[in-house]
């Protein structure tokens, strides 16, 4: 596929041509990639079937560590989801126009990341068919769920987040689906036509649409802050040393935006190159995302320091033991991967030249993703493996079943993302076109 020759489209109609061109029939490389990812998902399904048949013993979860890779990966994917909402809702409310070119891709990531995350509590409970026990429903035993439990809060938070993310994503997509309907002539015309819900861009439709987007942004902004706060309370509400701390909610929210923004860069760099979208996803986007990563990395680094400071300052021997163990005990290697990747690796991004060096920036974001997965792994395993009684200490090693399902989660996420790329406009056409008419482009092209 040829790259866009002009850095900035010259006419409003060229936006439709450029962006909808991505919907052309897929190349063999694309098909092979999707099949490979589907193969990864298949391996994960096989591992899950094996675990379901033989029971949770085939996972590495043993006394005293009963939360391991599954909960780590759940928190990781919920975190990844946060950048999409930040870009689409929070930056919308702040009128940060640069978001327009990347918000669709980030919102799609949010939806697929939440879908991936939602699988993990189900995988973790072992008896997947009992998942509905988490939902309050009238039953003959007269039981209701325990609403005082953070785990039950999580059920409500994650389901609300998934629903609102999908709705927000869909509402933003409606005008672009109509644009796609008006361009294609094959069977997809009916698909886009049905999904566009009769959109014609009338004054009344835009009036309702603008109001709906504004309200959904207003609702999604506190929601995104609440979701990772609630996820952090899964830990902080307990009395496990290393978990029971009030800094967890802001620390987790900053970490989520940090990892999510890094994932946006990790995913969008190859997409931009493969589909020739350099005229849309421009250097200013990388510059701004780099600044976000630097900011959130600094908050995360500060949170790490505060945790250690509080452990020392509290004079609580259990807390001090937990953090000593975290840095120099059995899991020292995981802790130092976490600190290196999340605090040290992003430091070069303070320099603008580095933020604009896309290959280098892209490599950094992969390390950040690794670091953020390890952050959750460190919190969970070090906390549970060394609680109060030395007699109950232990060491957790993930089994091949858990690692296969972890790998499959990446396949699952990327497979859906790639399918989305070919089916729907990856850039919000109406929003970048809005900039065209407002003359907000670099260099005042219009």
């Amino acid at each position: 596929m040829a790259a866009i020759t002009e850095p900035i489209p010259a006419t409003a109609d060229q936006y439709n041509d450029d962006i909808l061109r991505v919907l052309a029939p897929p190349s063999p490389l694309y098909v092979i990639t999707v099949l490979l990812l589907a193969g990864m998902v298949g391996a994960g399904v096989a591992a899950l079937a094996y675990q379901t048949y033989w029971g949770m013993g085939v996972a590495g979860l043993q006394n005293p560590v009963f939360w391991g890779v599954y909960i780590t990966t759940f928190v990781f994917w919920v975190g990844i989801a946060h950048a999409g909402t930040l870009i689409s809702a929070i930056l919308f409310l702040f009128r940060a126009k640069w978001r327009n070119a990347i918000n669709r891709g980030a919102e799609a990531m949010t939806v697929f990341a939440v879908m991936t995350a939602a699988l993990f509590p189900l995988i973790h409970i072992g008896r997947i068919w009992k998942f509905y026990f988490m939902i309050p429903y009238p039953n003959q035993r007269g039981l209701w769920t325990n609403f005082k439990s953070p785990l039950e809060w999580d059920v409500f938070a994650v389901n609300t987040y998934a629903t609102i993310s999908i709705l927000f994503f869909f509402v933003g997509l409606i005008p672009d689906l109509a644009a796609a309907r008006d361009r294609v002539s094959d069977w997809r015309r009916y698909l886009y036509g049905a999904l566009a819900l009769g959109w014609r861009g009338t004054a009344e439709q835009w009036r309702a649409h603008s109001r709906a987007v504004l309200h959904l942004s207003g609702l999604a902004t506190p929601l995104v802050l609440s979701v990772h706060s609630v996820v952090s309370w899964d830990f902080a509400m307990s009395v496990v040393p290393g978990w029971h701390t009030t800094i967890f909610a802001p620390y987790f929210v900053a970490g989520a935006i940090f990892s999510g923004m890094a994932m946006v860069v990790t995913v969008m760099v190859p997409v931009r190159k493969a589909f020739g979208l350099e005229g849309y996803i421009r250097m200013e986007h990388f510059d701004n995302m780099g600044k976000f990563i630097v900011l959130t990395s600094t908050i995360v680094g500060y949170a790490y320091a505060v945790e250690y400071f509080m452990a020392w300052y509290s004079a609580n021997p259990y807390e001090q033991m937990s953090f000593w163990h975290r840095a120099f005990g059995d899991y020292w290697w995981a802790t130092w991967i976490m600190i290196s990747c999340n605090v040290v690796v992003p430091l070069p991004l303070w320099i603008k030249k580095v933020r604009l060096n896309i290959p280098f920036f892209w490599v950094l974001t992969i390390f950040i993703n690794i670091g953020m997965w390890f952050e959750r792994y460190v919190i969970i395993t070090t906390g549970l493996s060394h609680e109060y009684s030395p007699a109950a200490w232990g060491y957790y090693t993930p089994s091949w079943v858990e690692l296969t399902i972890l790998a499959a989660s990446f396949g699952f996420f990327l497979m859906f993302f790639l399918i989305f790329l070919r089916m729907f406009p990856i850039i919000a056409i109406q929003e970048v076109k809005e900039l065209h008419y407002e003359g907000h482009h670099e260099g005042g092209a219009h």
Partner: protein
Amino acid sequence: MASVLGVLTDPHATASAIRKLRGAGFTDLDSYSPIPSHEIEEAMDRGPSRVRTWTLIGCLVGVTLGFLMTIWMSYDYPIIVGGKPYASIPPYTVIGFELNILFGGVLTVLGLMFHGMFLNRVDSGAYRPNFSGDQFGCVVNCGANDVERVEKLLRESGCTEVRVVEGA
């Protein structure tokens, strides 16, 4: 009754045409636009969308339901957890908050579908695919005697094409 369509190429000219037509007494207007434009919205002068009422109702229903559900269920299955009262308000705030957002969001989208799609489901027949590309449309419903005047006003406003819509 007739409908006249004027085709324009940018939102400023469209808003200006709408203002001119409204000034001339033609208030039964509609427009097509590939982008959301505050200028066109202001020119139409229809006030804020009713979608906001849907959001408000959704949020109020959600937060009320969140607290009522948790409190009622706690007394329907009374069990003391962590030494707290059966119905303990601080933890239930989380459920109340989440349902507030959930219902508010869902009703916002239903409001969009009702006001934007359902009440707007019949097209005057003037829509053309370029209205999702780079063209803007201004449709004026007027009496048969006013068609010429409307056409003149639209041409003066910079329309690249003006025509009477068939079957309107």
